[in-house]
């Protein structure tokens, strides 16, 4: 009964082919099969948002999907966003605004915000808070995160 499935997934622009058990959660596939450990796992019941990734450009909970469902799809994780030497403007802004404390929820929040800022280049505080209200953070009280998003919005609109 334990069938295995061959899947092909494009993650951060790289094509990966693996064989997986259908029950393997996408979050575990990314972290442990592909070694992309920037995507974090905290609740595994879809509440905390730590495992948020972009699935075909949309933020989703990777703990509420099976790896086998990603077959033929495009995924972006935090590793695909920027590098320490070449940070994404949102990451730059988070750095400057001290939006990071322990940093565990950060990748999920970044992945939630990237498409949000594309849709809302100039968000107000309430919109930002609504956008991240599906991501729990226990360290920052969210304020510096909100400030970071505002700063990012400025940076990104300036750079256009």
């Amino acid at each position: 009964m334990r069938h295995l499935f061959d899947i092909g997934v494009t993650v951060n622009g790289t094509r990966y082919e693996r064989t997986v058990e259908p029950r393997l959660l996408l979050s575990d596939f990314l972290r442990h099969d592909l070694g992309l450990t920037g995507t974090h796992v905290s609740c595994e019941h879809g509440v905390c948002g730590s495992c948020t990734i972009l699935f075909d450009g949309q933020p989703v909970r990777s703990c509420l999907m099976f790896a086998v469902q990603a077959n033929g799809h495009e995924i972006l994780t935090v590793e695909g966003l920027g590098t320490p030497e070449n940070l994404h403007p949102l990451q730059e802004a988070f750095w400057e605004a001290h939006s990071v404390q322990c940093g565990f929820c950060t990748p999920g929040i970044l992945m939630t915000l990237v498409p949000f800022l594309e849709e809302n280049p100039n968000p107000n505080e309430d919109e930002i808070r609504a956008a991240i209200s599906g991501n729990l953070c226990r360290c920052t009280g969210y304020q510096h995160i909100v400030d970071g998003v505002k700063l990012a919005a400025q940076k990104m609109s300036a750079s256009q």
Partner: protein
Amino acid sequence: MTKKYIGKRIKRSEDPRLLTGEALFVDDVEIHGMLHAAFLRSDYAHAYLRSVDVSAAQAREGVVAVFTAETMGDDWQPGPPLVSPPPTVEDVIFHSRTQVPLVKDKVRHVGEPIAIVIAENRYIAEDAVDDIMVDLEPLDAVVDIEKAMQPDSPLVHDDLDSNLAAHIEQEKGDYAAIREGADLIIKRRIVIDRGAAVAMENRGVVAQWDAKSQRLTVWDTTQAPIAIRNGLAARLDLSEHQVRVIAPFIGGAFGPKMMMFYPEEMLIPWVSIKLDRPVKWIEDRYENFYATTQERRQVHDAEMALTLDGRILGVSDVFLHDSGAYDPYGLTLPLNTQCHMMGPYDVANYYSESKVVFTNKTIVTPVRGAGRPQGIFIVERLLDLAAKELGIDPVEIRKRNLIPPDAFPYEHKIIDQAFAPLIFDSGNYKPVLEKAADMIGYDQFVKDEQPRLRAEGRHVGIGIVPFIETTGVGPYEGARVTVEASGKINVATGVGTQGQGHFTSFAQIVADQLGVDVRDVHLVTGDTAEFHWGTGTFASRGSVVAANAINASAKLVREKILALASKVLESPEDELELADGVIRVADIPRISISLGELAMLANPLRGAVEPGTEPGLEATAYFGPQYGAIAFGTHAMIVEVDPQTMMIEIKRYVAVEDCGTVINPLIVDGQIHGGVSLGIGNSYYEKLVFDENGQLLNASLMDYLIPTAAEVPRIEIGHEETRSPLNPLGSKGVGEAGAIPVPALFAQAMENALPEYDLEILEAPLSPNRLFELLREKEREL
């Protein structure tokens, strides 16, 4: 030293790694051939363990081993407590009962581990856990701490004659005597309930035993790697030098990652040695609600004696403290509560009696705030009720009672969590209180805005609460500062870091001492291979104890630099200056040498040196404060309530802090934001609900509600700076401050928002449902 960096808002050097997912957390550790652990945990709160049948689990494909207390031989036994024994205070009772790796005879709380399965992956391990047949004989559970103290209560620990874990009385002056002459006595029963820390990262342990080198490496989500290293060595009969504990990046801790020893912390390394394979266990969120320690349940019978003009004559309080099933963390929590029940006030007479009680619930150890929010809640609630009775404005009655600036050092004749005398080292409280009142526009709100809003039928209330925080307790921390040939500085210290920005704030101190760029200071924390001595990150002590140890060692290095440079440059030390990584003669800048070159000269590889020469520009130093530093702050809040739905909105929040010298304001502000956010949870959202059988009814993030960006308001922060005389940097801790006053503040603001109900809020947390009940009671009275 120059003050180029200390006090500046410096970006954190650790952030680029965290922002790009490159930072290593425990669950990111991958080792070839690594096995995965899952636990069978008790569904019962209190039961005799009759039998465990693991045969089906062992037979499952992919399962490598299953262990129970039976198959562990003698190693199942409880370890010694790793925190200091209780103080030698008169008549103190303390029954030490520490948790076991696996249950042998009796289960004492839901979630206590009964068996551990080791398999090729976590999925199979969990399948196998479901294969285990366990026979538990349920016993009546000890849940309510008051019932637990009744003679007919079942016993959590059969070898004790009651559920009393500890008893400690502390007294200052003579409360009984002044009570007679008091104009007003406010006496209430006040209850604070249990909550969870909910660090976003659950706990985890990876252990790798290397039989060839006979060394054990452990990656652990701990706040105290050195204590864990020492404890593991002792439990596993290894030398401390055979054990390396690494606390890499930690996804938040807030206290429970301090607790030593968790069963899993001992078991995973034990299994790794037994099987000679690397083993990983990562706690899942469901386990976290049972297996990670919690805090705050206390029941107080408190009273305050005052004069007609609102001066506090004394405070008296008897309280029960829920310890959960064991008490590995000693008396820290009840002592903290006792030390905060006089708040920032000049209280001449004080009596406090604390009874610590065993219950069939998850173990209780510090959670950010650690007994302090309870103490502050008591004193502030009593003071608010007194203010109402006496018709004195809440801010005014507080001003009248604050300890005056000339009274410092102010000695309370009781002991603190470190068993040191509780002495308030320094402070200037009134300006902080006034600043908070000013920032939130207290007078204007009360005079104009509130009446206008009430006329519109809106229920908007204001609160303002001053508080103290005992911080920076001993015993000590240490650090080693090294100038490397590259001219860069390496700093090693024993504390772990969980998001407090140590990599940056500690680097700022060293950069100022040695006149280098802060980016050239590289810090290593939480790796026992890098630094051998230390205690840990707790009690808001990092920026006091560790920071001053680092400052001290940097100073020694500075002296070595100047001594050697003065020889090399043939100029007296007092003419030398350190800046930009170069030592130069003050008025002849061309006579200079770079730190890197000097470091090379300090480590000659050939030739002769003067006898007694120590190589390298390196020094190790330690710092242990005489007693804790007392931080102060005042928070203010404006909240709107809808008494039809019980929904609330915090309209404004002001926090003014005095934590002595601020090393990095950016980081301090972040700490306050996070603390307040937890405090808001503790006020209206976060409560662990247990039924009468000790079953937790909200063991998920669906039902245990931690605040989101929608519940936490923008926090306006103000600072005052009163240096601590107890350490060279003059710093005080701030890590827990934010969480401490919030429940008391919230209660005051809610009462103020609903004047027609004349509420008395004598509990924390409140909830919409509880508020509904309170309002219903009042409606029925009216």
